[in-house]
Structure formats: structure tokens, C-alpha cells
């Protein structure tokens, strides 16, 4: 009934102002087993422009850095949750902060995943792969997406 296999590449979008982080992120996705198509934007304003562009392919998972110039990740998160056609995108917060308060606030605001940026490349690969496979389970196994909360 529901599809169990994933042949199409998974659409991923990363919003992060740090060029090094963007590079690591893309490389990490290159090396994991699941096929993905990774796009990146450099800040919150660019992100919102990208998502609301006419005819754009929406990502299945959006990785969102909290600290970005012009518009913060938190502002983007709240804005996305208010827009009907965007509010079902799975959102993974990608941040250097690990304060319990920050984490809980993002979940309450509708984030699905909270990732503390790892310093090690292999750890990053493992985390990204876990996020994508878990999201896939929510997409293909009829689970209730409202309950999708993962803190890594």
C-alpha cells in the first residue's frame, strides 16, 4: 500500500551562512548510502525567497542554522509554520547551541529535529543519515508526523 522503497533522490535544503559548514554538509551527503539532492542557501532571507518562489521543488527535509544574519533560523521556522504549503516540510535545526531551552523552544515552534553541530565529519555523516532515514519512515510508514521529534 504505502511505498516502502525510495528510488527518487531525497530533496534536501540547507540554510547556513558558514561556507565551511555548507561544504562539510554537502560532502557528508555525498558519502552516505541514501540518494539525495542537496541545495543550499546562505541566510534566512534567501531561504524564504527560495521557498516561496513560483514552481520551486520543495525540500523533504530542511536543515536550518539558528544563527544567521538578516533573518534568524528561529524567525524562518515560525514563518514557515504559518505558510500552508510549507508547513509540512520536515525541519531539522542545525545549531552550535545545546542549551536545553533553545532546544525545547524550537520543538515547541514546530521543529522536528534538533542537531548539535558535530565537530567530526564521521559523526556528521552518521547524524545526517539518521535524520534522513527517520524522516523516510515517517513518509513511508504512515506515522503521525506531528509526533516526529528527534534530538541528536
Amino acid at each position: 500500500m504505502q511505498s516502502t522503497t525510495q528510488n527518487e533522490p531525497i530533496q534536501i535544503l540547507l540554510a547556513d551562512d558558514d561556507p565551511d559548514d555548507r561544504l562539510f554538509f554537502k560532502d557528508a551527503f555525498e558519502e552516505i548510502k541514501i540518494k539525495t539532492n542537496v541545495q543550499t542557501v546562505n541566510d534566512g532571507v534567501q531561504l524564504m525567497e527560495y521557498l516561496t518562489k513560483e514552481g520551486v521543488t520543495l525540500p523533504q527535509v530542511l536543515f536550518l542554522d539558528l544563527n544567521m544574519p538578516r533573518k534568524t533560523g528561529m524567525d524562518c521556522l515560525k514563518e514557515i509554520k504559518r505558510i500552508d504549503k510549507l508547513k509540512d516540510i520536515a525541519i531539522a535545526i542545525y545549531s552550535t547551541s545545546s542549551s536545553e531551552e533553545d532546544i525545547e523552544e524550537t520543538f515547541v515552534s514546530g521543529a522536528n529535529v534538533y542537531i548539535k553541530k558535530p565537530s567530526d565529519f564521521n559523526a556528521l555523516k552518521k547524524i545526517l543519515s539518521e535524520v534522513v532515514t527517520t524522516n523516510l519512515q515517517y513518509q513511508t510508514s504512515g506515522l503521525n508526523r506531528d509526533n516526529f521529534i528527534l534530538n541528536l
Partner: protein
Amino acid sequence: MKLYIKYNINAICKKILEEQLDKLDLNYSVTGFGEVDIKENVSNEKLKQLGVGLNDYGIEIVESHKSILVQKIKDAITEMVYLEEKLPTSKISSYLADKIGHSYGYIYNLFSEVTHTSIGNYIILQKTERAKQLMTTTELTFTEIAWKLNYSSVAHFSNQFKNATGITPTAFQRIMNKRRNKVPTPEPSENS
């Protein structure tokens, strides 16, 4: 006013399947979840129509043998986790092997190959989801939930929940309550 509802996905799917199959005048029976037995030869044209009709509901006709087996494994696990009574205490591996009709080694490898996750992880995921559902839609205590899902103790349940989600059951419940009580900020356009 806000209403919080509970629903049964399997009942919904069955109903939709029946409606779509009736539309095409087919002689069928829905044999279990994820399986329909059609008692006649179906033209490719009709099969295509059925596929299109079901697609609107996010239901797909699974074709390949491997996908079907994986779907059966998933269904068996879901069924096991959602049993109204306590989960079977017999060994899960032999339970699944019996139910699917292949050796556990075979289904274990097949499952990992197709889904990129292991059967063990999938069971934990389903149990955690069931726990989340019980936490948000019932008044059951953690002790009652732990018992219902066959954990040996609340501590065991809490640990597995924390390992699977990164947060404690208490934090999960707090977050969900805060989400519900949050007054949604209206879009600026709605004010004008």
C-alpha cells in the same frame, strides 16, 4: 474551538480501497492490511485507473516482490505493536518468521536492504510512536504505557524513549502540551 481527534489509519485505508475498487466494478476481497485479492483478470487500463485513484490518497500499488515482503514485515510489526492487549512475549524473531513464512535471517537482511534501517530499529520506532500516541491521546500514566508496550519497567521504557528520540517522555509531553496551547500568530494579511 479546537477538536482533538483519534483515528484508525487501517480502517481509513480499507474504506478508501473499497470505495475505489467498487468504482471500477471489480470482484475483490480485502484480505488483510496491505493486500487485496481480485478474483478476476484485471485489464491494464483498469489497474492504471485504480492506481491513479488511490494515488490521490497517498496510497500506492506496490509491485515488486521485495517491496511486498517488506510491507508485510512492516504490517506484522505494526499489528504486533498496536495489539489492544499486551504484546506477545514470545521471541519477536520467531513471531515474525512464522508470520511472514521465511527465515528470520532472510527477512532481516531484506528489510535492511530495502528500508536502510533494521527490523530492530523499526520495532523501536513503532513502539515509540505508539507510546507518543498514547501520551497525547489518553490519560494513561507512564507506568501503564510501559506495561501496555511490554517494557519490564518504567525506567526501561523511559530509557528506550530517550535513546530513540533524544528527549525524555516527560519533555515530549511538555512540548506537545505547549504546542497545543500556543495561540497561533495570525498572518499579517488576515488582520487587514
